[in-house]
């Protein structure tokens, strides 16, 4: 489903954010990408989301080599991914429902069905009663749930989340992880970039660890508490 082969990312100023990173993620896996600040986690997230391109190596998602992807094909790839960003990237001048309707409007989904799907996505993340609220009135945890609802409303096969629990308290972070787990249980591939895997208690995800741009560990379904130590 996701495969990275000898991926290196070097920025123009010469800084090497990733060096020779390789891994494979199969369909339906729940994977945590961990590492300290500056380890290259967010860079890898950007490469997987096709926001940036690797300097060398290849990334293949759903059989599509991102390096060979033409610029005008990028939107169609991103529609198949559920992207959740560290800064959430919500539209603050639109209400909760309109934020979730946006990905459906982009693909030209029929309005009636789009409304039903958006409401279902909001119910799934526990925001069924906040449809008319504006993001500014939501708590941090609720804003993250809204970002998740927007990411999953198009029913993607892959969810990529960059630090989805940053700045959240333990209870809210656990709720967010539970939501991701619920998607994994129905066959969605979930890759979560996080530096606080220790917060997860009863999940047994696969852990990928980055250290100074290099993949140092690829543990199969370990207890995250153990992996974080």
């Amino acid at each position, binding site marked *: 489903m996701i495969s990275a082969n000898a991926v290196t990312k070097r920025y123009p100023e010469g800084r090497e954010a990733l060096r020779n990173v390789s891994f494979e993620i199969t369909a339906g896996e729940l994977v945590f990408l961990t590492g300290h600040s500056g380890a290259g986690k967010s860079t890898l997230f950007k490469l997987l989301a096709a926001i940036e391109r690797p300097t060398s190596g290849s990334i293949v998602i759903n059989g599509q080599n991102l390096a060979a992807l033409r*610029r005008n094909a990028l939107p169609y790839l991103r529609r198949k991914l559920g992207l959740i960003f560290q800064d959430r990237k919500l*539209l603050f001048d639109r209400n909760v429902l309109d934020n979730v309707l946006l990905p459906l409007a982009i693909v030209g989904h*029929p309005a009636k069905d789009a409304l039903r799907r958006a409401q279902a996505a909001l119910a799934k993340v526990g925001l069924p009663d906040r449809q008319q609220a504006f993001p500014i009135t939501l708590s941090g945890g609720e804003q993250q749930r809204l970002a998740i609802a927007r990411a999953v409303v198009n029913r993607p096969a892959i969810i990529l989340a960059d630090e989805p629990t940053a700045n959240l308290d333990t209870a809210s972070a656990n709720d967010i992880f539970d939501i991701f787990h619920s998607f994994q249980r129905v066959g969605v591939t979930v890759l979560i970039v996080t530096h606080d895997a220790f917060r997860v208690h009863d999940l047994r995800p696969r852990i990928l660890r980055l250290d100074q741009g290099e993949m140092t560990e690829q543990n199969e379904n370990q207890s995250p508490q153990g992996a974080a130590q």
Partner: protein
Amino acid sequence: MRARLAQHLAALRDACRRLAVAPLNTLLSLLVIGVALTLPTAGWLAVDNLRELAGDTPGVQQISVFLAIEAGKREVGDIESRLEEARAGNWHFVPREEALKRLQASEGMAEIVASLPKNPLPDAFVVTPADTQPESLERLATTFAAWPKVAHVQLDSAWVKRFDALLRLGRLVVMLLAALFAGALVTITFNTIRLQILAQAAEIEVTKLIGATDAYIQRPLHYFGMLQGALGGLCAAALVSAGLHLLTPLVGELARLYGGHFVLHSLSVNDIVVLAAIGGSLGWLGAKISVLIHLRRFA
């Protein structure tokens, strides 16, 4: 197909929302575009009214064919046949008796005409050619002059040439004005769309990240430019019509004082549609250029 149509409708709705969300800005932009389109429109209308006024004035763009004094009914019939064959345009016959009566009716001429021993005026034809180009008029006049029993052909070709040159100059000035103000309209829309893109930068970035194509992002901006231009065109039509409403009675009064009758013709529904379409097209062009330049940074 239905999805595409739905996306176009959504983009149009979005463009309308953007226009409605800042009514004062929208009104000011429409006024600026309206004024920019008003000047060439008013100029075009003035030239058109002038052309019509000249066309209605006796003697202008008409050819008078005077027959010889001795010409009889047979010769008059012959000239009529020749005029029909030549398909020269509209014409009417003025018998010498009627010409004398008209002369008598002219102010101060009654006594002079009464003192004449006999009618000195010849029979005449007044031809209003279909083709009023100066060269065509001169060609016709030369043809008429060669016909038998034609004593004199009168065409004020110098006047016609001067008037035609004046009209052509007027049209050229209007076209230059139109090009200048079209450039202004494109520039206004370009800048409005630039500001729209700056204001919507976050939204554009997010929509691109979650799978929006360039067309999806550009569409509402194109519609915005087009709507603004078209509404500006309608605004110009309203301004020109208001101006004509004020001028029409004064021009009519002036025409009456000169013993004539003239009504300024206003913009037709077709003219208004064309004006809105031109405004819309220029607005779309401004938006298209602005989008191409300013959306690059989101690539």
